[in-house]
């Protein structure tokens, strides 16, 4: 089975090609092509995982290019980490394919949507299966393009077009860093193969300074892709894409690729304490930063987007403090519950007839029961309430941070965990409890739409994900470290921290504080919603405007570059090209002036000719006298 792992990305690729060619004929039947392909991939992934649990990895490569004496190969590889990732990606992808069948129903580009989804699944699975970091980078960029395509799926909306561009460009900045990191890796370690790189690092073939530079360059790529501060700005805007896309790409899989990248290159990062610190602090800053914005945002998808950014920050913190398993474990559980939350929000938006402002929602609990219950499960999971998946993974992250003996990090992470519980329950209460507010803001001509529960093709994925969000955490609890052993076996990723016994009640307490506060404000109304905004209106405004980072980037990077371009263009046209044209005009002018001497007077010509001839003769004579011409 394991040697057929290459089939896993090939199924979606086939689906993509089929849909590209026959999409117009298939119309909405396109969904079946995608679903079948993903089901096949999922089945294969399961087989691969089971075989991998009991056995060995597998690697197969072919020659890709030779330059000089260097040969680069491409192929596929099954390791413990990517066997796990395969399951995560195919599961979420399959469910999203199912969900979209109804969600995208009636869209005139329905087959195109499915072809993009298939292409994305192919790229993401290819990324996961990559045996070397160059191939990973290739698929890394491909998933970026798919993200661009899917965010811009509703291209006729200017916001969607702008968001797609922004997403691509922002991640591109990180990618250039990653690209440079790759090139340096190849130059200093002689290969893109993981084993060779790690061997070179371990044997001290590369000086520490260069390891740090390479690790930081690679991390820059992860910062872009995983939407870490300061390159996180694209992810909230990417919510302009269809909601299933947000669930698949911008929550569960692609954005986690950055974390995955750090995980894959972990021995390299471990070799540089500077790089580890940078990873940890970037993660921590991102976590608290995004969580603070999520506190005040009112768009259901954007709150989830900021929570994604924040959770990715958690994973980075875990990795940066030596918690290899913790980070990747959270990556897995987060994939499930965040996909659940996003699809749940998709169901809400669908039921609300494409409105997504939580101020217009409320009281949906009775109107869409299944969505509400599954959403609650997801919320409990992300808030870190036992026994839901998020609790276990967050607990190991806390253990890992605690183990690193950095009180600042621990404080930040604790506060952020509480904030997470708070803003997620704020979202839940505002959406599902209280009174329905959808009719409060009706404009003239609009009439009441009754929210309704989504059909079963949408709720079944929710239920499946809810089950996963409950049980996925049990693979790694303080009582059984199954995942721990599976992932670290045969890998040199350092000792994994297993937290003190007080951490379990501690993390429960954190979650409860957040939830209780949200309960008081948004359910009970004991504390007014405006209490905190009135307490510090300035802070509230800054948070609402996302710390003005978009404006800052526009003023500091975008405008100066465009203006520089304009200045250069002026120089190009008037000075550089001006010189060229001036030369032309000068030549032309000289020709004109000289041509005026041609009067047409035969006798003048004759006279000049004769004088010229005489001059030549005189010159020849003179030269002869001087002894030239022998």
């Amino acid at each position: 089975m394991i040697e057929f792992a290459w089939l896993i990305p090939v199924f979606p690729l086939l689906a993509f090609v089929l849909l590209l060619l026959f999409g117009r004929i298939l119309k909405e039947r396109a969904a079946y092509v995608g679903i079948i392909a993903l089901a096949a991939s999922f089945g294969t992934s399961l087989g691969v995982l089971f075989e991998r649990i009991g056995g060995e990895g597998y690697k197969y490569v072919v020659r890709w290019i030779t330059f000089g004496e260097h040969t680069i190969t491409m192929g596929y590889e099954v390791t413990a980490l990517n066997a796990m990732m395969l399951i995560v990606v195919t599961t979420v992808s399959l469910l999203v394919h199912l969900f979209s069948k109804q969600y995208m129903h009636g869209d005139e580009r329905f087959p195109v949507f499915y072809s993009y989804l298939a292409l994305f699944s192919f790229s993401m699975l290819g990324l996961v299966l990559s045996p070397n970091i160059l191939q990973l980078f290739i698929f890394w960029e491909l998933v970026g393009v798919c993200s661009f395509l899917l965010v811009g799926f509703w291209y006729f909306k200017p916001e969607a077009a702008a968001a797609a561009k922004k997403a691509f460009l922002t991640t591109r900045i990180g990618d250039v860093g990653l690209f440079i990191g790759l090139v340096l890796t190849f130059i200093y370690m002689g290969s893109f193969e993981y084993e060779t790189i790690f061997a070179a690092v371990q044997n001290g073939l590369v000086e520490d300074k260069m390891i740090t530079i390479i690790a930081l360059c690679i991390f820059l790529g992860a910062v872009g892709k995983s939407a870490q501060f300061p390159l996180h700005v694209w992810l909230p805007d990417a919510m302009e894409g269809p909601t299933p896309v947000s669930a698949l790409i911008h929550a569960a899989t692609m954005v986690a690729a950055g974390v995955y990248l750090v995980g894959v290159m972990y021995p390299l990062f471990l070799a540089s304490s500077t790089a580890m610190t940078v990873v940890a602090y970037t993660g921590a800053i991102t976590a608290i930063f995004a969580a603070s914005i999520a506190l005040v945002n009112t768009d259901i998808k954007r709150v989830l987007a900021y929570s994604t950014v924040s959770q990715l920050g958690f994973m980075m913190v875990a990795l940066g403090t030596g918690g290899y398993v913790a980070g990747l474990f959270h990556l897995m559980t987060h994939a499930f519950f965040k996909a659940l939350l996003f699809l749940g929000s998709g169901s809400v938006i669908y039921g609300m007839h494409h409105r997504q402002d939580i101020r217009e929602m409320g009281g949906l609990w009775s109107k869409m029961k299944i969505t509400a219950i599954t959403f609650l499960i997801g919320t409990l999971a992300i808030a870190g309430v036992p026994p839901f998946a998020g609790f276990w993974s967050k607990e190991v992250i806390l253990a890992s941070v605690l183990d690193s003996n950095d009180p600042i990090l621990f404080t930040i992470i604790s506060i952020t965990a509480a904030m997470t519980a708070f803003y997620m329950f704020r979202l839940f209460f505002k959406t599902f409890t209280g009174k329905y507010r959808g009719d409060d803001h009706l404009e003239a001509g609009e009439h009441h739409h009754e929210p309704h529960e989504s059909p079963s093709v949408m709720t079944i994925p929710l239920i499946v994900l809810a089950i996963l969000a409950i049980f996925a955490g049990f693979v790694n609890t303080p009582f059984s470290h199954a995942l721990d052993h599976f992932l670290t076996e045969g890998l040199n990723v350092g000792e994994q921290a297993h937290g003190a016994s007080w951490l379990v009640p501690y993390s429960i307490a954190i979650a409860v504080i957040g939830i209780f506060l949200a309960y008081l404000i948004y359910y009970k109304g004991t504390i007014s919603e405006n209490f905190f905004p009135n307490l510090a209106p300035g802070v509230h405004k800054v948070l609402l405007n996302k710390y003005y980072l978009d404006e800052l980037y526009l003023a500091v990077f975008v405008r100066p570059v465009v203006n520089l371009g304009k200045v250069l263009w002026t120089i190009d046209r008037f000075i550089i090209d001006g010189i060229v044209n001036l030369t032309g005009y000068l030549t032309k002018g000289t020709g004109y002036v000289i041509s005026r001497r041609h009067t047409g007077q035969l006798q003048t010509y004759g006279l000049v000719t004769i004088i010229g001839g005489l001059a030549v003769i005189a010159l020849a004579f003179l030269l002869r006298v001087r002894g030239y011409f022998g």
Partner: protein
Amino acid sequence: MVPITLYLALAAVLFCIGLYGVLTRRHLVIVLVSVELMLNAVNINLVAFSSIGPFANITGQVFSLFVITVAAAEAAVGLAILIALYRNRKSIDVIKQDLMRW
């Protein structure tokens, strides 16, 4: 025996008179006649060298006959052009024939 320098001097004088005529006279017929003068100056040179030059031989005389023939043909062509020109432009004043201007 007349020394060769005298022949050459005569030819030179004749050539210069011809040249002067070509460059200064405005009447095209006179210009043509002046050209004939220059050709004849050359003929004198050829004949002189042919009979009393350092390598005297018959080639010079033969050559001068060729020149005379060519000159005759040339005069014919020249006069024909001159007439055609006069028909078209109603003038054979050299100064007015400036179609070759820039």
